[in-house]
């Protein structure tokens, strides 16, 4: 009797301990968010939300200063958009090839290599873009600067491809074997099986992969800091320089006086960035819930 009670208490303690461990990350996240908003919101005493989000001039250290981040937001969106246009087809198609078409020998080489791409530190990719790609672009396209949207997007795509590819592969892997076998047994070709069965069945997973890849691209700092050129202006062509949000924060935070307007404005950019990536994740979550392949009848 006594023994049973002891065991019960032990069970209880272990359970609570695990609950505590599980909530630690939530608590930390919560604290960071609170801190982010606490440091970011005071800027709106100086400028209105509208002026901040839609103002085009970013002169944070002038007297009087201008805190308009529209060009910075546009910079982030353009770079992320173009990099997704490169990374999504590359990532998804290579995942399909690796998991469905490639023979075991090719697969053995391709899979680790794609994953190795994820292991490259972003500063190395940034340096590559700055020292190798920038002069190359300048020569080939005869443009005044190689530190531009195209270069940054290409480098970001390199970082997003492994994320998209490996998550897509997981999603395809999760498609039940009998679906594949049934399709082939009905006489469908391999292409028909992939396009009509495998991809639709793993669509929610693929969408999640794409969105997580994009949120990786929008939050990436080092690459855009080194390669995007850093001009806080709305671009007129894809060979113009831009200044995405993470680059602004990283470049300016070190030198800004503590709790100055500039400091608060940088945190407010952080809030915008946080909300953007948060939305991305919400959408990913929503899609993966809504379009989850539950049975086999709906295909």
């Amino acid at each position, binding site marked *: 009797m006594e023994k049973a009670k002891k065991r019960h208490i032990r069970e209880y303690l272990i359970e609570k301990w695990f609950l505590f461990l599980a909530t630690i990350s939530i608590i930390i996240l919560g604290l960071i968010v609170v801190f982010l908003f606490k440091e970011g919101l005071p800027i709106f005493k100086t400028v209105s939300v509208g002026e901040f989000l839609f103002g*085009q*001039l*970013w*002169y*944070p*250290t*002038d*007297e009087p200063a201008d805190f308009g981040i529209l*060009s910075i937001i546009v910079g982030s969106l353009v770079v992320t958009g173009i990099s997704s246009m490169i990374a999504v087809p590359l990532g998804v198609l290579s995942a399909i090839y690796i998991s469905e078409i490639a023979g075991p020998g090719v697969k053995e080489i391709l899979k680790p290599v794609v994953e190795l791409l994820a292991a490259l530190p972003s500063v190395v990719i940034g340096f590559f873009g*700055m*020292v190798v790609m*920038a*002069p190359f672009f*300048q020569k080939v396209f005869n443009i*005044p*600067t*190689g*530190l531009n949207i195209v270069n940054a997007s290409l480098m970001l795509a390199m970082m997003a491809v492994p994320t998209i590819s490996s998550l897509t592969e997981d999603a395809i892997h999760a498609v039940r074997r009998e679906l594949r076998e049934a399709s082939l047994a009905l006489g469908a070709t391999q292409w028909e099986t992939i396009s009509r069965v495998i991809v639709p069945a793993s669509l929610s997973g693929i969408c999640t992969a794409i969105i997580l890849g994009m949120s990786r691209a929008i939050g990436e700092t080092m690459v855009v*800091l*080194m390669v995007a*050129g*850093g*001009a*806080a*202006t709305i671009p007129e062509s894809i060979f113009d*320089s831009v*200044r995405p949000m993470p680059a602004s924060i*990283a*470049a*300016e*935070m*070190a*030198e*800004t*006086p*503590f*709790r*100055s307007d*500039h400091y608060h404005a940088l945190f407010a950019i952080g809030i915008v960035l946080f909300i953007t990536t948060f939305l991305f994740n919400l959408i990913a979550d929503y899609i993966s819930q809504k379009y989850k392949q539950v049975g086999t009848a709906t295909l």
Partner: protein
Amino acid sequence: MKKSLWLKVLALSMVLCFGIAGSAFAEKLVIKGSTTVLPVAQKAAEDYMKMHPDVIISISGGGSGKGIKALVDGFTDIANASRFIKKKEINHAMKNNIFPVAHRVAIDAIVPVVHPTNRIKNLTLPQLKSIYQAKIRNWKELGGDDRKIVIISRDTGSGTYEVWHKKVMKKERISPRAQLLASNGAVVQAVKGNKHAIGYVGIGYLGRGLKALDVNGVTASVTTALNGTYPVARPLFMFTNGWPKGVVSDFINFMVGPKGQKIVKEEGFVPLYELGR
């Protein structure tokens, strides 16, 4: 297996204890701040620790703003800064009962640079200003080749930018088309690889595949920066809390003394006075 793990833990904790006990006898000095001053402070700290083995100096960068913030919050003994302290920072310091005192330790001259193939040799201050306002957009307007000008500037928070903004731009705005790069090194890279570019760097960064331009006909050098004829120069500071005492005072004296100033010169900055040979 398990025993050996415990032995390791025991050994480690003993080492830690001795380490802490050992360092209790040493004096500690914390230096933080400007990345411009960092190489000088780093070298000076190494030499100083060789001469005084009982002093441990920990040194880190982070920027002028961060250094002064650390001083204001009492986290550092010396704050390196490539600019003077701002009014807001002084008010903040006063509230914390901290009284920042400035010590000039070196002079930095900022030099406009272009690609070596550029034919331009000299620019006046007004010309530089028009370039950075994007009013002059082609090198041919200045007597150079027919190439578009790509303006390269530093981030608006950096001390180097602040000097350029004040001395060249006369506090007017740099065109938003300017590329803002995060470090002297990045500007060197960008200008070296771009025939269209103009940038500006500290005098210590010259000579790496860059062509330095004269300003108002004056070549940037130790002599011209010291006698004030070179127009784009600034002092570099170390801030202490109150007039320094003890080790802090000794280190500042070392810094402004002949040995420290020799380091300043070796790191590519301008020393405070002509050094004897």
